[in-house]
């Protein structure tokens, strides 16, 4: 955070017991969520999980059945959207086609009675921030998708909102542009320092951009933590499966509390008794071990038959059958050094996993 935040001070959001039902569907089921002042928090979940519903409740467009939303000290659950001082960016951008770029961005300023030179100056400043200087007089239909995205963004922060909400703002862009905009959005967030709630169903995007990620499923908050923790210590099978790629294998627990995978100790359940435990293996954390390697203090070694190896550009994916109905995915780089060690489909191979990379989740059912 090198640049000093401009605009008004950011506000924390405190959500308590928020519930919203559509008929029998619980779009939100008793959600508690704290968004820290100035942080970039992403709501991540599959389609229909309730992300938009939650965002719309924060913006004031959908009225929850019960619960509380506070911006700082203020309860806003009954505050209409236009009084919430929340900047919003939609997936469709929702630019006003009957106004040019400058009028679009100037719209919130006009509503606040800011006119003439000051409005023009602030619009220009916002345009500069999103790297669109000189585009003010353009019509909306003369802009590319990425430029529209920036205009929508400028319009959402130009009036100095205390909170910025974005609902899948990059999903209409192609992959290259999307990745560039992810970085730019992150920079912009640092510069503005505004509390930001971002919605996506793209886990990679969530991990790239966020200070913290809130994983949502079926209207419930499943896990809220930093991208590293979400990825390395998923709270349950749903998170492990949804974030990143993974192979999940059931574990057994011996009387001493050690967790075993095919007789090899992979972890410790402590005194926790009555649960199922699952081993999660990320394909990129697995590697091909030398033939004859054995499990030791550092590495767990599994043997199996190479089913197939698929070239995917920057990496190669191998499927290894460790028994008749269990396949483990192994991903490795395609540099000259690494390869499927010259193995062919049908060959016997050994795969290794560093003990530090072992992920064990409780109550997991392989999904």
């Amino acid at each position: 955070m090198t640049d000093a935040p401009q605009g008004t001070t950011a506000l924390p959001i405190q959500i308590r017991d928020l519930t919203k039902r559509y008929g029998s569907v619980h779009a939100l089921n008793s959600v508690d969520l704290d968004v820290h002042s100035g942080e970039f928090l992403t709501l991540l979940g599959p389609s229909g999980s309730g992300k938009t519903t939650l965002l719309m409740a924060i913006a004031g467009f959908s009225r929850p059945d019960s619960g509380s939303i506070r911006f700082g000290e203020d309860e806003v659950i009954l505050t209409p959207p236009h009084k919430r001082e929340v900047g919003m960016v939609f997936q469709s951008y929702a630019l006003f086609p009957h106004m040019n770029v400058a009028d679009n961005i100037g719209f919130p300023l006009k509503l606040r009675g800011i006119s003439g030179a000051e409005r023009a100056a602030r619009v220009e400043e916002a345009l500069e921030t999103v790297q669109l200087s000189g585009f003010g007089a353009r019509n909306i239909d003369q802009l590319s998708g990425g430029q529209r995205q920036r205009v929508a963004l400028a319009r959402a922060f130009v009036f100095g909102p205390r909170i910025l909400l974005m609902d899948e703002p990059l999903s209409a862009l192609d992959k290259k542009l999307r990745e560039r905009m992810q970085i730019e959005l992150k920079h912009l967030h640092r510069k503005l320092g505004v509390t930001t709630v971002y919605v996506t169903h793209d886990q990679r995007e969530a991990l790239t951009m966020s200070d913290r990620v809130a994983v949502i499923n079926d209207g419930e908050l499943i896990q809220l933590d930093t991208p590293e923790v979400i990825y390395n210590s998923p709270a349950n099978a749903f998170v492990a499966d949804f974030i990143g790629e993974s192979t999940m294998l059931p574990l057994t627990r011996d009387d001493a509390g050690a967790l075993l995978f095919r007789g090899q100790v992979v972890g410790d359940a402590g005194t926790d008794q009555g649960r199922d435990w699952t081993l999660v293996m990320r394909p990129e954390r697995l590697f091909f071990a030398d033939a004859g390697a054995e499990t030791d203090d550092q590495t767990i070694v599994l043997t199996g038959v190479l089913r197939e190896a698929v070239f995917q550009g920057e990496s190669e994916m191998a499927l290894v059958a460790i028994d008749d109905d269990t396949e483990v995915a192994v991903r490795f780089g395609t540099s000259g050094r690494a390869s499927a060690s010259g193995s062919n489909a049908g060959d016997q191979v050994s795969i290794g996993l560093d003990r530090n990379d072992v992920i064990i989740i409780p109550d997991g059912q392989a999904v």
Partner: protein
Amino acid sequence: MNWWSRPAADTQITHGNRLWLYVLSAIIMLLLVAPTLIVVPMSFSDSQYLEFPPSTWSLRWYEEYLGSAKWMRATATSFQVGFLTMLVATPLGVMAAYALFVSRHRATRAIFLLLITPMIVPVILIAIGTFYAYGRVGMNNTIAGLVLAHSALALPIAIIVVTAGLSSYDLSQEQVARSLGATRTKAFFLITLPQIRFSVITAALLSFLTSFDEVIIAIFVSGGANATLTKHMFAALRDYIDPTIAAISTIMVILSSALLLLTQFLGSKGKRN
């Protein structure tokens, strides 16, 4: 390659193959407009009677029309009623179409059908019903009564036109406007209305025309000093036939066609935006 053997569309079909279609279409269009156009030459006749083709030409029936206090008064009434109908039906139509567009209520479909029933029910039934209802409350032969009845006819048209205009509109624009600080009303007037303005103007013009051209309800519920042009024309046709009717018809055809062309023009302009 001559015109005959050139393809008429992105297919193998040539203009030559399609000749029968062109001829058929021309005949149908001719049949549609010929009865209307036949009054035009008749209106320039010098004869006492409706005559086609006229043996001698003059503008006397136009002079007759423009010089008659009775016809002028009826014309003023028609314009007044048309204009007021436009003022009543257009805002109501916009509001109804907008509400039906925004609402997710289960009953919207049923409400829409209810609102457009005046278009489906035979006008004569509406006329008779209105006549008896107005008889109870003393609204026959009043401007207000006629405007209300015509508004009921114009409303479905206004609703359909504005609904079509809204169909491609992205409501999230209004949500954005509200998050940016606009009240719902402001968001509608600053963001939505400007974008559907061509539909709204079209709805207004068609509402005016609906009333201006309307004869059946006018025959029943307008009269005396507040009789419309169409009612007088109908009475004139029944009682004595003279070419003044042809002159008035010609003027009405020109006015109506001009307004319709205007709506077409606005429609294409609206689509481009």
